[in-house]
Protein backbone atom coordinates (compact mmCIF):
# COMPACT_ATOMS: atom_id res chain seq x y z
CA UNK A 1 0.00 0.00 0.00
CA UNK A 2 1.29 3.43 -0.90
CA UNK A 3 1.76 5.80 2.03
CA UNK A 4 1.85 8.87 -0.18
CA UNK A 5 -0.26 11.93 0.49
CA UNK A 6 -0.59 14.95 -1.79
CA UNK A 7 0.56 18.48 -1.04
CA UNK A 8 -2.19 20.53 -2.62
CA UNK A 9 -1.35 23.93 -1.21
CA UNK A 10 1.38 25.80 0.63
CA UNK A 11 1.50 29.26 2.15
CA UNK A 12 3.72 31.34 4.39
CA UNK A 13 3.84 34.65 6.22
CA UNK A 14 7.21 36.32 5.89
CA UNK A 15 9.56 35.69 8.83
CA UNK A 16 10.62 38.75 10.84
CA UNK A 17 10.03 40.60 14.07
CA UNK A 18 6.59 41.98 13.39
CA UNK A 19 5.39 42.20 16.99
CA UNK A 20 1.90 40.97 16.19
CA UNK A 21 -0.21 38.15 17.58
CA UNK A 22 1.01 34.82 16.17
CA UNK A 23 -2.55 34.03 15.07
CA UNK A 24 -2.41 36.82 12.47
CA UNK A 25 0.61 35.24 10.81
CA UNK A 26 -1.05 31.86 10.82
CA UNK A 27 -4.19 33.22 9.19
CA UNK A 28 -2.20 34.76 6.36
CA UNK A 29 -0.32 31.50 5.73
CA UNK A 30 -3.59 29.53 5.85
CA UNK A 31 -5.34 31.83 3.41
CA UNK A 32 -2.39 31.64 1.01
CA UNK A 33 -2.34 27.83 1.24
CA UNK A 34 -6.09 27.64 0.54
CA UNK A 35 -5.72 29.91 -2.48
CA UNK A 36 -2.74 27.88 -3.68
CA UNK A 37 -4.78 24.68 -3.37
CA UNK A 38 -7.89 26.20 -4.94
CA UNK A 39 -9.91 25.18 -1.88
CA UNK A 40 -12.39 26.87 0.45
CA UNK A 41 -12.08 26.93 4.23
CA UNK A 42 -15.07 24.61 4.53
CA UNK A 43 -13.19 21.99 2.46
CA UNK A 44 -10.74 21.49 5.35
CA UNK A 45 -11.69 18.40 7.36
CA UNK A 46 -8.78 18.38 9.82
CA UNK A 47 -6.81 21.28 11.28
CA UNK A 48 -3.48 20.03 12.61
CA UNK A 49 -1.82 22.80 14.61
CA UNK A 50 1.85 22.87 15.59
CA UNK A 51 2.05 24.40 19.05
CA UNK A 52 4.01 27.34 20.35
CA UNK A 53 4.82 27.49 24.06
CA UNK A 54 5.60 31.20 24.02
CA UNK A 55 2.11 32.57 23.51
CA UNK A 56 0.07 31.18 26.40
CA UNK A 57 -2.89 28.87 26.03
CA UNK A 58 -3.83 29.89 22.47
CA UNK A 59 -0.39 28.60 21.50
CA UNK A 60 -0.75 25.31 23.40
CA UNK A 61 -4.04 24.53 21.66
CA UNK A 62 -2.92 25.79 18.27
CA UNK A 63 -5.30 23.55 16.32
CA UNK A 64 -8.34 25.02 18.05
CA UNK A 65 -6.94 28.56 17.94
CA UNK A 66 -6.65 28.56 14.15
CA UNK A 67 -9.92 26.69 13.72
CA UNK A 68 -11.70 29.37 15.71
CA UNK A 69 -9.88 32.22 13.97
CA UNK A 70 -10.86 30.95 10.52
CA UNK A 71 -14.36 30.08 11.75
CA UNK A 72 -15.60 26.94 13.49
CA UNK A 73 -16.82 24.38 10.98
CA UNK A 74 -16.97 21.25 13.11
CA UNK A 75 -13.75 19.96 11.54
CA UNK A 76 -11.42 17.57 13.38
CA UNK A 77 -8.55 19.28 15.19
CA UNK A 78 -5.25 18.24 16.71
CA UNK A 79 -2.40 20.09 18.35
CA UNK A 80 1.19 18.82 18.42
CA UNK A 81 4.19 19.86 20.42
CA UNK A 82 7.66 18.48 19.77
CA UNK A 83 9.82 21.61 20.12
CA UNK A 84 11.53 22.27 16.76
CA UNK A 85 9.95 19.12 15.34
CA UNK A 86 6.39 20.28 16.14
CA UNK A 87 5.59 21.12 12.53
CA UNK A 88 6.70 17.71 11.29
CA UNK A 89 4.73 16.06 14.05
CA UNK A 90 1.61 17.95 12.88
CA UNK A 91 2.33 16.95 9.26
CA UNK A 92 2.62 13.34 10.35
CA UNK A 93 -0.64 13.51 12.28
CA UNK A 94 -2.46 14.92 9.24
CA UNK A 95 -0.87 12.29 7.01
CA UNK A 96 -1.81 9.45 9.34
CA UNK A 97 -5.43 10.60 9.58
CA UNK A 98 -5.65 10.87 5.78
CA UNK A 99 -4.08 7.43 5.28
CA UNK A 100 -6.36 5.94 7.94
CA UNK A 101 -9.33 7.28 6.02
CA UNK A 102 -10.55 9.66 8.73
CA UNK A 103 -10.32 12.63 6.38
CA UNK A 104 -9.30 13.59 2.85
CA UNK A 105 -8.22 17.19 3.29
CA UNK A 106 -6.09 18.51 6.15
CA UNK A 107 -4.51 21.84 6.98
CA UNK A 108 -1.20 21.82 8.83
CA UNK A 109 -0.39 25.16 10.39
CA UNK A 110 2.44 26.48 12.58
CA UNK A 111 2.98 30.08 13.66
CA UNK A 112 4.98 31.85 16.34
CA UNK A 113 5.87 35.15 17.93
CA UNK A 114 9.20 34.84 19.73
CA UNK A 115 10.99 36.97 22.31
CA UNK A 116 14.45 38.44 21.72
CA UNK A 117 17.69 36.77 22.72
CA UNK A 118 18.54 33.32 24.09
CA UNK A 119 15.62 30.95 24.44
CA UNK A 120 15.35 30.43 28.20
CA UNK A 121 13.85 27.62 30.30
CA UNK A 122 10.55 27.96 32.15
CA UNK A 123 10.66 30.23 35.22
CA UNK A 124 10.77 29.13 38.86
CA UNK A 125 12.95 26.70 40.83
CA UNK A 126 12.81 23.55 38.72
CA UNK A 127 15.40 21.18 40.20
CA UNK A 128 13.93 18.15 38.40
CA UNK A 129 13.86 19.79 34.95
CA UNK A 130 17.04 19.09 32.93
CA UNK A 131 16.32 22.14 30.79
CA UNK A 132 16.43 24.35 33.91
CA UNK A 133 19.35 22.54 35.53
CA UNK A 134 21.70 22.97 32.59
CA UNK A 135 21.48 26.75 32.97
CA UNK A 136 21.82 26.73 36.77
CA UNK A 137 24.61 24.14 37.07
CA UNK A 138 26.93 25.39 34.32
CA UNK A 139 25.37 28.02 32.06
CA UNK A 140 24.76 25.56 29.28
CA UNK A 141 22.79 27.48 26.60
CA UNK A 142 21.49 26.27 23.25
CA UNK A 143 24.59 27.67 21.48
CA UNK A 144 26.68 25.54 23.88
CA UNK A 145 25.50 22.43 22.05
CA UNK A 146 25.98 24.00 18.62
CA UNK A 147 29.49 25.10 19.57
CA UNK A 148 30.53 21.75 21.05
CA UNK A 149 29.55 20.08 17.78
CA UNK A 150 31.41 22.74 15.78
CA UNK A 151 34.63 22.48 17.80
CA UNK A 152 34.51 18.70 17.53
CA UNK A 153 34.49 19.05 13.72
CA UNK A 154 37.51 21.33 13.90
CA UNK A 155 39.56 19.01 16.11
CA UNK A 156 38.58 15.77 14.39
CA UNK A 157 37.84 16.63 10.74
CA UNK A 158 39.86 19.77 10.24
CA UNK A 159 36.92 22.14 9.82
CA UNK A 160 37.92 25.79 9.94
CA UNK A 161 36.22 28.97 11.07
CA UNK A 162 36.13 29.92 7.38
CA UNK A 163 34.06 26.79 6.64
CA UNK A 164 31.45 27.78 9.22
CA UNK A 165 31.35 31.31 7.83
CA UNK A 166 31.07 29.96 4.28
CA UNK A 167 27.85 28.13 5.21
CA UNK A 168 26.36 31.43 6.37
CA UNK A 169 27.52 33.21 3.21
CA UNK A 170 25.94 30.49 1.07
CA UNK A 171 22.62 30.42 2.92
CA UNK A 172 22.35 34.21 3.04
CA UNK A 173 22.82 34.28 -0.72
CA UNK A 174 20.11 31.65 -1.20
CA UNK A 175 17.75 33.56 1.11
CA UNK A 176 18.07 36.74 -0.95
CA UNK A 177 15.87 35.09 -3.58
CA UNK A 178 13.21 34.05 -1.05
CA UNK A 179 10.49 36.65 -0.35
CA UNK A 180 9.48 34.82 2.85
CA UNK A 181 12.96 35.01 4.42
CA UNK A 182 13.50 37.55 7.21
CA UNK A 183 16.93 38.67 6.03
CA UNK A 184 17.79 39.64 2.48
CA UNK A 185 21.38 40.63 2.92
CA UNK A 186 24.50 39.29 1.28
CA UNK A 187 27.42 38.55 3.59
CA UNK A 188 31.11 38.29 2.86
CA UNK A 189 33.28 35.73 4.61
CA UNK A 190 35.06 38.58 6.34
CA UNK A 191 31.85 40.15 7.68
CA UNK A 192 30.86 36.84 9.25
CA UNK A 193 34.34 36.30 10.69
CA UNK A 194 34.32 39.80 12.19
CA UNK A 195 31.00 39.34 13.96
CA UNK A 196 31.27 38.94 17.75
CA UNK A 197 32.26 35.56 19.15
CA UNK A 198 29.27 34.15 21.05
CA UNK A 199 30.21 30.56 21.84
CA UNK A 200 33.70 29.86 20.52
CA UNK A 201 34.09 28.83 17.69
CA UNK A 202 30.69 30.20 16.66
CA UNK A 203 30.04 33.85 15.94
CA UNK A 204 26.91 35.94 16.08
CA UNK A 205 26.12 35.66 12.37
CA UNK A 206 26.52 31.88 12.51
CA UNK A 207 23.87 31.29 15.17
CA UNK A 208 20.26 31.51 14.15
CA UNK A 209 18.02 34.23 15.50
CA UNK A 210 14.47 33.74 16.79
CA UNK A 211 11.72 35.05 14.53
CA UNK A 212 8.02 35.54 14.06
CA UNK A 213 6.54 33.67 11.13
CA UNK A 214 4.01 31.16 9.89
CA UNK A 215 3.81 28.32 7.40
CA UNK A 216 0.90 26.17 6.27
CA UNK A 217 0.50 23.14 4.02
CA UNK A 218 -2.67 21.49 2.83
CA UNK A 219 -2.38 17.71 2.58
CA UNK A 220 -4.94 15.53 0.84
CA UNK A 221 -5.38 11.92 -0.11
CA UNK A 222 -4.00 10.99 -3.54
CA UNK A 223 -7.57 10.22 -4.64
CA UNK A 224 -8.75 13.70 -3.68
CA UNK A 225 -5.89 15.28 -5.64
CA UNK A 226 -6.77 13.11 -8.64
CA UNK A 227 -10.41 14.21 -8.40
CA UNK A 228 -9.21 17.81 -8.73
CA UNK A 229 -7.06 16.93 -11.76
CA UNK A 230 -3.89 17.85 -9.91
CA UNK A 231 -0.56 16.06 -10.32
CA UNK A 232 0.74 17.04 -6.91
CA UNK A 233 4.04 17.01 -5.08
CA UNK A 234 3.80 14.07 -2.69
CA UNK A 235 4.88 13.47 0.88
CA UNK A 236 6.71 10.16 0.60
CA UNK A 237 7.94 9.74 4.15
CA UNK A 238 7.85 11.35 7.56
CA UNK A 239 10.31 9.96 10.08
CA UNK A 240 9.58 10.87 13.67
CA UNK A 241 11.52 8.09 15.36
CA UNK A 242 13.39 8.03 18.65
CA UNK A 243 17.09 7.51 19.20
CA UNK A 244 18.20 3.96 19.96
CA UNK A 245 19.55 3.22 23.43
CA UNK A 246 22.22 4.02 24.29
CA UNK A 247 22.04 7.49 22.73
CA UNK A 248 25.73 8.34 22.77
CA UNK A 249 25.37 11.67 21.01
CA UNK A 250 24.83 14.66 23.27
CA UNK A 251 21.23 15.83 22.89
CA UNK A 252 19.93 19.17 24.06
CA UNK A 253 19.14 19.81 26.96
CA UNK A 254 21.07 16.91 28.53
CA UNK A 255 24.35 17.39 30.38
CA UNK A 256 25.46 13.81 29.76
CA UNK A 257 25.00 10.97 27.27
CA UNK A 258 23.72 7.48 27.86
CA UNK A 259 26.31 4.95 28.98
CA UNK A 260 27.29 2.34 26.38
CA UNK A 261 28.64 -0.12 28.94
CA UNK A 262 25.82 -2.65 28.92
CA UNK A 263 24.54 -2.18 25.38
CA UNK A 264 26.96 -1.17 22.63
CA UNK A 265 26.53 1.98 20.56
CA UNK A 266 23.89 1.83 17.82
CA UNK A 267 25.21 1.54 14.26
CA UNK A 268 23.86 4.99 13.38
CA UNK A 269 23.95 8.09 15.56
CA UNK A 270 20.53 9.60 16.23
CA UNK A 271 20.37 12.21 13.46
CA UNK A 272 21.57 9.72 10.85
CA UNK A 273 18.96 7.24 12.03
CA UNK A 274 16.13 9.73 11.45
CA UNK A 275 17.23 10.25 7.85
CA UNK A 276 17.77 6.53 7.38
CA UNK A 277 14.22 5.83 8.56
CA UNK A 278 12.84 8.44 6.15
CA UNK A 279 14.79 6.98 3.21
CA UNK A 280 13.58 3.46 4.07
CA UNK A 281 9.99 4.57 4.23
CA UNK A 282 10.20 6.47 0.94
CA UNK A 283 12.09 3.71 -0.82
CA UNK A 284 14.61 6.33 -1.90
CA UNK A 285 18.21 7.04 -1.02
CA UNK A 286 20.54 10.02 -0.73
CA UNK A 287 21.47 9.73 -4.42
CA UNK A 288 17.83 10.29 -5.39
CA UNK A 289 17.69 13.66 -3.63
CA UNK A 290 17.84 16.90 -5.64
CA UNK A 291 17.99 19.15 -2.58
CA UNK A 292 17.85 19.18 1.21
CA UNK A 293 16.47 21.59 3.81
CA UNK A 294 18.28 21.09 7.11
CA UNK A 295 18.21 22.68 10.53
CA UNK A 296 21.13 25.11 10.51
CA UNK A 297 20.62 26.32 14.07
CA UNK A 298 24.29 27.11 13.63
CA UNK A 299 26.18 27.21 10.38
CA UNK A 300 28.41 24.40 11.63
CA UNK A 301 25.47 22.08 12.33
CA UNK A 302 24.63 22.17 8.64
CA UNK A 303 27.89 20.30 8.02
CA UNK A 304 26.87 17.54 10.44
CA UNK A 305 23.61 17.17 8.52
CA UNK A 306 25.44 16.61 5.20
CA UNK A 307 26.88 13.47 6.75
CA UNK A 308 23.76 12.47 8.70
CA UNK A 309 21.69 12.63 5.49
CA UNK A 310 24.26 10.57 3.63
CA UNK A 311 25.07 13.37 1.18
CA UNK A 312 28.73 12.56 1.83
CA UNK A 313 30.78 10.23 4.01
CA UNK A 314 31.64 11.06 7.61
CA UNK A 315 34.37 13.68 7.80
CA UNK A 316 33.82 14.87 4.24
CA UNK A 317 31.25 17.61 4.79
CA UNK A 318 33.86 20.36 4.58
CA UNK A 319 34.97 19.07 1.18
CA UNK A 320 31.36 18.99 -0.05
CA UNK A 321 30.95 22.61 1.04
CA UNK A 322 34.30 23.80 -0.34
CA UNK A 323 33.61 22.14 -3.69
CA UNK A 324 30.42 24.19 -3.98
CA UNK A 325 28.27 21.06 -4.15
CA UNK A 326 25.71 22.38 -1.64
CA UNK A 327 25.00 25.75 -3.20
CA UNK A 328 22.28 26.26 -5.80
CA UNK A 329 23.80 25.03 -9.05
CA UNK A 330 25.89 22.43 -7.22
CA UNK A 331 25.40 18.68 -7.04
CA UNK A 332 23.10 18.65 -4.00
CA UNK A 333 21.97 22.15 -2.94
CA UNK A 334 21.27 22.49 0.79
CA UNK A 335 19.00 25.13 2.33
CA UNK A 336 17.87 26.66 -0.95
CA UNK A 337 15.28 28.62 1.08
CA UNK A 338 18.10 30.40 2.87
CA UNK A 339 17.71 28.12 5.90
CA UNK A 340 17.57 29.31 9.47
CA UNK A 341 20.46 31.62 8.60
CA UNK A 342 18.05 33.70 6.52
CA UNK A 343 14.89 33.01 8.48
CA UNK A 344 15.73 32.79 12.17
CA UNK A 345 13.69 30.20 14.00
CA UNK A 346 9.91 30.41 14.38
CA UNK A 347 9.77 27.08 16.19
CA UNK A 348 6.37 25.52 15.30
CA UNK A 349 6.43 26.92 11.75
CA UNK A 350 9.95 25.92 10.80
CA UNK A 351 9.50 22.26 9.89
CA UNK A 352 6.37 23.20 7.92
CA UNK A 353 8.31 25.93 6.10
CA UNK A 354 10.91 23.34 5.08
CA UNK A 355 8.17 21.36 3.36
CA UNK A 356 6.84 24.53 1.66
CA UNK A 357 10.30 25.05 0.17
CA UNK A 358 10.49 21.46 -1.11
CA UNK A 359 7.05 21.91 -2.66
CA UNK A 360 7.97 25.08 -4.53
CA UNK A 361 11.23 23.52 -5.70
CA UNK A 362 9.58 20.31 -6.90
CA UNK A 363 6.88 22.24 -8.73
CA UNK A 364 9.52 24.38 -10.42
CA UNK A 365 8.05 27.49 -8.75
CA UNK A 366 11.09 28.59 -6.76
CA UNK A 367 12.01 31.53 -8.98
CA UNK A 368 15.60 32.73 -8.79
CA UNK A 369 16.52 30.01 -6.30
CA UNK A 370 15.14 27.15 -8.42
CA UNK A 371 17.11 23.90 -8.42
CA UNK A 372 16.95 22.81 -12.05
CA UNK A 373 15.14 19.53 -12.64
CA UNK A 374 14.45 18.88 -8.96
CA UNK A 375 12.60 15.59 -8.50
CA UNK A 376 12.90 14.80 -4.77
CA UNK A 377 14.06 16.44 -1.58
CA UNK A 378 14.53 15.77 2.11
CA UNK A 379 14.08 17.91 5.22
CA UNK A 380 15.64 17.32 8.60
CA UNK A 381 15.29 18.95 11.94
CA UNK A 382 15.65 18.13 15.57
CA UNK A 383 13.66 19.07 18.65
CA UNK A 384 14.62 18.67 22.28
CA UNK A 385 15.27 15.31 23.99
CA UNK A 386 15.56 13.30 20.78
CA UNK A 387 12.36 14.54 19.14
CA UNK A 388 13.69 14.82 15.59
CA UNK A 389 12.07 14.56 12.23
CA UNK A 390 12.72 14.14 8.54
CA UNK A 391 10.29 14.53 5.64
CA UNK A 392 10.86 13.31 2.08
CA UNK A 393 8.85 14.74 -0.81
CA UNK A 394 8.95 13.91 -4.51
CA UNK A 395 7.25 14.88 -7.72
Amino acid at each position, binding site marked *: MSHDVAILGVGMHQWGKWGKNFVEYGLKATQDALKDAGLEWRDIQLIAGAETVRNGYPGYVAGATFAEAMGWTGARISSSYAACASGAQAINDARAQILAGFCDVALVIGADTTPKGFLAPNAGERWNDPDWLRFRLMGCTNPTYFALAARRRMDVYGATEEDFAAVKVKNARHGMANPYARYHKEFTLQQVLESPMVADPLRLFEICATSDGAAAVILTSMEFAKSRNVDPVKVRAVATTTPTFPCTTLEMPNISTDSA*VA*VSEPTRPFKASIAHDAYEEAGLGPDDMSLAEVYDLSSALELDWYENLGLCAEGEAEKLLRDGDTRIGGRIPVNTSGGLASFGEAVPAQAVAQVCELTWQLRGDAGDRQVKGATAGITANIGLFGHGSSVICSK
Partner: protein
Amino acid sequence: MSTTPTAPVIEDWFSHDPEPHLIGTRCKQCATYYFPKQTSFCRNPDCFSSDFDEVPLSRTGKVWSYTKHFYQPPEPFITDGEEFEPYTIVGVELEAEKMMVLGQLAADASFEDLKAGIEMELVIEKLYHRDGTDYMIWKWKPTAS
Protein backbone atom coordinates in the same frame (compact mmCIF):
# COMPACT_ATOMS: atom_id res chain seq x y z
CA MET B 1 42.40 28.56 54.00
CA SER B 2 39.31 30.51 53.26
CA THR B 3 36.75 30.42 56.01
CA THR B 4 33.81 31.16 53.72
CA PRO B 5 31.17 28.50 54.28
CA THR B 6 30.49 26.29 51.28
CA ALA B 7 27.49 24.33 50.07
CA PRO B 8 26.92 22.27 46.94
CA VAL B 9 24.82 23.90 44.22
CA ILE B 10 22.92 20.62 44.14
CA GLU B 11 22.92 17.93 46.85
CA ASP B 12 24.33 14.42 46.33
CA TRP B 13 25.52 14.85 42.75
CA PHE B 14 29.24 14.82 43.66
CA SER B 15 31.56 14.14 46.57
CA HIS B 16 33.59 16.97 48.06
CA ASP B 17 36.84 15.44 49.25
CA PRO B 18 40.50 15.54 48.14
CA GLU B 19 39.74 13.20 45.25
CA PRO B 20 36.24 14.26 44.32
CA HIS B 21 34.00 12.36 41.97
CA LEU B 22 30.54 12.51 40.48
CA ILE B 23 27.94 10.29 42.10
CA GLY B 24 25.97 8.19 39.63
CA THR B 25 23.97 5.04 39.80
CA ARG B 26 24.43 1.65 38.16
CA CYS B 27 21.68 -0.76 37.26
CA LYS B 28 21.99 -3.93 39.37
CA GLN B 29 20.77 -6.06 36.50
CA CYS B 30 22.34 -4.77 33.26
CA ALA B 31 25.15 -2.65 34.74
CA THR B 32 24.33 0.52 32.79
CA TYR B 33 25.68 3.67 34.44
CA TYR B 34 23.61 6.80 34.95
CA PHE B 35 24.51 10.41 35.62
CA PRO B 36 22.51 12.27 36.76
CA LYS B 37 21.40 9.39 38.98
CA GLN B 38 18.62 7.14 37.75
CA THR B 39 16.77 5.50 40.62
CA SER B 40 13.32 4.58 39.39
CA PHE B 41 13.63 2.48 36.24
CA CYS B 42 16.45 1.36 33.95
CA ARG B 43 16.37 3.07 30.54
CA ASN B 44 17.86 0.08 28.73
CA PRO B 45 14.82 -1.07 26.72
CA ASP B 46 15.67 -4.74 27.32
CA CYS B 47 16.12 -4.34 31.06
CA PHE B 48 13.20 -4.07 33.46
CA SER B 49 15.16 -3.44 36.60
CA SER B 50 14.37 -0.80 39.17
CA ASP B 51 17.28 -1.62 41.47
CA PHE B 52 20.34 0.59 41.40
CA ASP B 53 23.59 0.94 43.29
CA GLU B 54 24.92 4.40 43.97
CA VAL B 55 28.45 4.48 42.51
CA PRO B 56 31.32 6.93 42.17
CA LEU B 57 32.13 7.72 38.53
CA SER B 58 35.65 7.90 37.10
CA ARG B 59 37.24 11.18 38.06
CA THR B 60 39.28 11.39 34.87
CA GLY B 61 38.37 11.26 31.21
CA LYS B 62 39.20 12.62 27.77
CA VAL B 63 37.99 15.82 26.13
CA TRP B 64 35.27 15.30 23.51
CA SER B 65 34.76 18.99 22.78
CA TYR B 66 34.73 22.44 24.41
CA THR B 67 33.39 25.95 23.93
CA LYS B 68 33.97 29.35 25.52
CA HIS B 69 30.97 31.62 26.13
CA PHE B 70 31.16 35.38 25.85
CA TYR B 71 27.59 36.37 26.67
CA GLN B 72 25.63 36.05 29.89
CA PRO B 73 22.98 33.33 29.71
CA PRO B 74 19.45 34.05 30.94
CA GLU B 75 18.16 32.93 34.36
CA PRO B 76 18.42 30.58 36.15
CA PHE B 77 22.15 31.09 35.38
CA ILE B 78 23.78 32.99 38.26
CA THR B 79 26.88 35.13 37.80
CA ASP B 80 29.54 34.77 40.47
CA GLY B 81 30.42 38.43 40.84
CA GLU B 82 28.84 41.68 39.73
CA GLU B 83 30.34 41.39 36.27
CA PHE B 84 29.75 38.51 33.90
CA GLU B 85 32.97 36.65 33.09
CA PRO B 86 33.34 34.43 30.01
CA TYR B 87 33.43 30.74 30.93
CA THR B 88 34.19 27.49 29.16
CA ILE B 89 32.17 24.29 29.00
CA VAL B 90 33.90 20.97 28.33
CA GLY B 91 32.44 17.60 27.39
CA VAL B 92 34.54 14.79 28.88
CA GLU B 93 34.28 11.13 27.90
CA LEU B 94 34.60 8.67 30.79
CA GLU B 95 36.24 5.51 29.51
CA ALA B 96 34.99 2.99 32.06
CA GLU B 97 31.41 4.28 31.99
CA LYS B 98 31.40 4.89 28.20
CA MET B 99 29.52 8.13 28.61
CA MET B 100 30.14 11.86 28.31
CA VAL B 101 29.56 14.44 31.03
CA LEU B 102 29.61 18.22 30.58
CA GLY B 103 31.03 20.65 33.10
CA GLN B 104 32.64 24.06 33.27
CA LEU B 105 36.41 24.36 32.88
CA ALA B 106 38.30 24.96 36.14
CA ALA B 107 38.94 28.64 36.88
CA ASP B 108 42.74 28.48 36.61
CA ALA B 109 42.78 26.33 33.45
CA SER B 110 43.19 27.83 30.01
CA PHE B 111 40.74 27.43 27.13
CA GLU B 112 43.66 27.68 24.71
CA ASP B 113 45.22 24.50 26.12
CA LEU B 114 42.19 22.36 25.31
CA LYS B 115 42.12 19.84 22.49
CA ALA B 116 39.92 16.85 21.76
CA GLY B 117 41.42 13.78 23.41
CA ILE B 118 43.46 15.39 26.20
CA GLU B 119 43.04 14.03 29.71
CA MET B 120 40.97 15.89 32.29
CA GLU B 121 40.24 15.40 35.96
CA LEU B 122 37.31 16.40 38.09
CA VAL B 123 37.65 19.21 40.64
CA ILE B 124 35.14 20.91 42.91
CA GLU B 125 35.08 24.69 42.66
CA LYS B 126 32.92 27.66 43.42
CA LEU B 127 30.21 28.35 40.83
CA TYR B 128 28.80 31.46 42.52
CA HIS B 129 28.76 33.29 45.86
CA ARG B 130 25.49 34.21 47.45
CA ASP B 131 24.37 35.27 50.93
CA GLY B 132 27.79 34.62 52.50
CA THR B 133 28.12 31.12 51.06
CA ASP B 134 30.24 29.77 48.21
CA TYR B 135 28.11 27.41 46.15
CA MET B 136 30.22 24.58 44.75
CA ILE B 137 29.99 22.54 41.58
CA TRP B 138 32.10 20.00 39.67
CA LYS B 139 34.41 21.33 36.97
CA TRP B 140 36.95 19.79 34.62
CA LYS B 141 40.66 20.56 34.67
CA PRO B 142 43.50 19.29 32.45
CA THR B 143 45.37 16.56 34.32
CA ALA B 144 48.76 17.80 35.50
CA SER B 145 51.32 16.21 33.19
